[in-house]
């Protein structure tokens, strides 16, 4: 008998598969937005592991996403035409394999950035990860093999509802399961007080590295999904603004809250559609929302109970 959490995960995967199978005659615009929402859930939940639960401050999530996006797109665009793949083989074998490789490479990048810089805390760590994100962007802009500043075009549209929501369910499960164990409570302890955590026998460096590796692994997979959803990659799509967007989802949902962050990811991604006509004003609106939130609800917008009686 499986634990309830795993049954729930399995049910989500089956549901995603069934809905995906019947998505053939759904509105393509709606599908596009829905898949964008799923990718956001992956990004926000994985960043929540690093910034929320483990108390680190990464501003480089878009960079990790880019590593996964370009890796997986390169794999499908170069290996795809070879070996006479069938459409099924492309979408159900090559594509998930490319996502996995993209995720693993991104996790490796997470280790490479994380291991030397995890002695840093708070703002210092934020600056290092921000620098990493910018380096990735500039490197991609200057490597002709991946299209340089023109971007990578003609990425096949393998992303469907099953892959996005399947990944989203898996991400949420992994983060939830990691936290809900005696071992996983260590992440929260590291976030609360590193000195005390070490004194209780916790290897705080290892915890932080696991958080970074797992977080960037899923960011990389999200990148692969994004690449095969949009069909076109441009380095500027993975800049500072994208990282900030994900950070905002985590803060708005409530750092270290599972459901809150998922809700925030869904709402903030969906709400972008009607806001699109505002163009650049969108970011200003974002900033305003953040400021108001920090003043009115520092614990996060979707943290239960939604309203608590003031005790005076």
């Amino acid at each position, binding site marked *: 008998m499986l634990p309830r959490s795993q049954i729930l995960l399995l049910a989500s995967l089956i549901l995603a598969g069934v809905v995906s199978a019947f998505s053939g005659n759904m509105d393509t615009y709606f599908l596009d937005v829905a898949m964008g929402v799923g990718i956001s859930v992956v990004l926000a939940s994985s960043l929540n592991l690093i910034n929320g639960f483990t108390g680190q401050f990464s501003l480089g999530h878009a960079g990790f996403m880019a590593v996964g996006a370009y890796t997986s797109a390169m794999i499908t665009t170069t290996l795809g035409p070879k070996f006479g793949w069938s459409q099924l083989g492309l979408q159900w074998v090559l594509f998930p394999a490319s996502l996995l490789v993209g995720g693993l490479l991104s996790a490796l990048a997470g280790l490479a950035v994380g291991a030397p810089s995890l002695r840093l805390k708070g703002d210092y760590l934020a600056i290092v990860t921000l620098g990493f994100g910018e380096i990735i962007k500039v490197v991609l802009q200057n490597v002709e093999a991946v299209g340089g500043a023109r971007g990578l075009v003609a990425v096949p549209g393998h992303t469907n509802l099953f892959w996005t929501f399947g990944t989203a369910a898996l991400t949420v499960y992994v983060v939830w*399961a*990691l936290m809900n164990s*005696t071992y996983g409570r260590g992440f929260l302890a590291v976030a609360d007080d590193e000195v*005390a955590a070490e*004194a209780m026998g916790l290897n705080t460096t290892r915890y932080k590295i696991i958080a970074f590796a797992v977080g960037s692994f899923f960011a990389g997979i999200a990148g692969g999904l994004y690449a095969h959803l949009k069909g076109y990659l441009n380095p500027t799509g993975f800049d500072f603004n994208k990282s900030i967007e994900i950070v905002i989802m985590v803060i708005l949902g409530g750092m270290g809250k599972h459901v809150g962050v998922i809700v925030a990811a869904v709402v903030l991604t969906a709400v972008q559609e009607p806001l699109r006509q505002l163009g650049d004003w969108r970011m200003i609106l974002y900033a305003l929302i953040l400021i108001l939130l920090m003043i009115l609800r520092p614990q996060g917008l979707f943290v239960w109970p939604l309203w608590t009686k003031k005790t005076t």
Partner: protein
Amino acid sequence: MAALLQLDQITIRFGGLTAVSEVTATVQTGELVGLIGPNGAGKTTVFNMITGVYQPSGGRIQFRGRSTAGLRPFEITELGIARTFQNIRLFPSLSVFDNVRVAFHLHLKHAAIHSLSRGPKFHAEEEELREATLGLLKIFNLERVQNEPAKSLPYGDQRRLEIIRALATRPQLLLLDEPAAGMNPAEKVELMRLIQFIRDQFQLAILLVEHDMKVVMGVCQRIHVLEYGRKIAEGTPQQIRANPAVIAAYLGQESTAA
């Protein structure tokens, strides 16, 4: 028999300041030892060297015959030394239960990967740890607040919870840094009883840093006295009470000119 903890001429300098200078001291298995001295004498600094927060500039620290040089704090905890802090350092956002549970970390058989697979062994171990945690909380009468966040507890309970959390690492030596600070006289009496109870129940040695003379004299078998980073006396409570150097350190030298 070799001492459980052996401090051999340990010294630490911060820039030009020698905070602790050539301190030699021992703690035997199962012993209750006090470390006292006026403010700024270097007591907490000694604690921080024993637990690996600071590396001594000179001298050696041996625990169970093993040098602790170069070990990180969590590795020293693994050897069997646990501590509390002068300014309480619980995990404030975690529940009382989780504060204790997380400290069983060293004795975990499962790792990150097992929390994902969640097999029967994982559940069995989690259940075992739940009972061990509740058992500890029950001994100290904190099980009724197990689901409260640690920061919401009253001060005295927070102090006790910090001791319980340290006990969960299953130490052979427990370092208590001013456990009586901020307690009223009744709470202090209770604390003395608690310290002795812990020593007997858990069969461990305790090194106690404390300002409150009544507490120190009441529970310790042996006392080391520091002043300005140097050890000025060692002995039983009776000997320390009568030691002229100690009296001078606490009350000042009697003026000979007048």
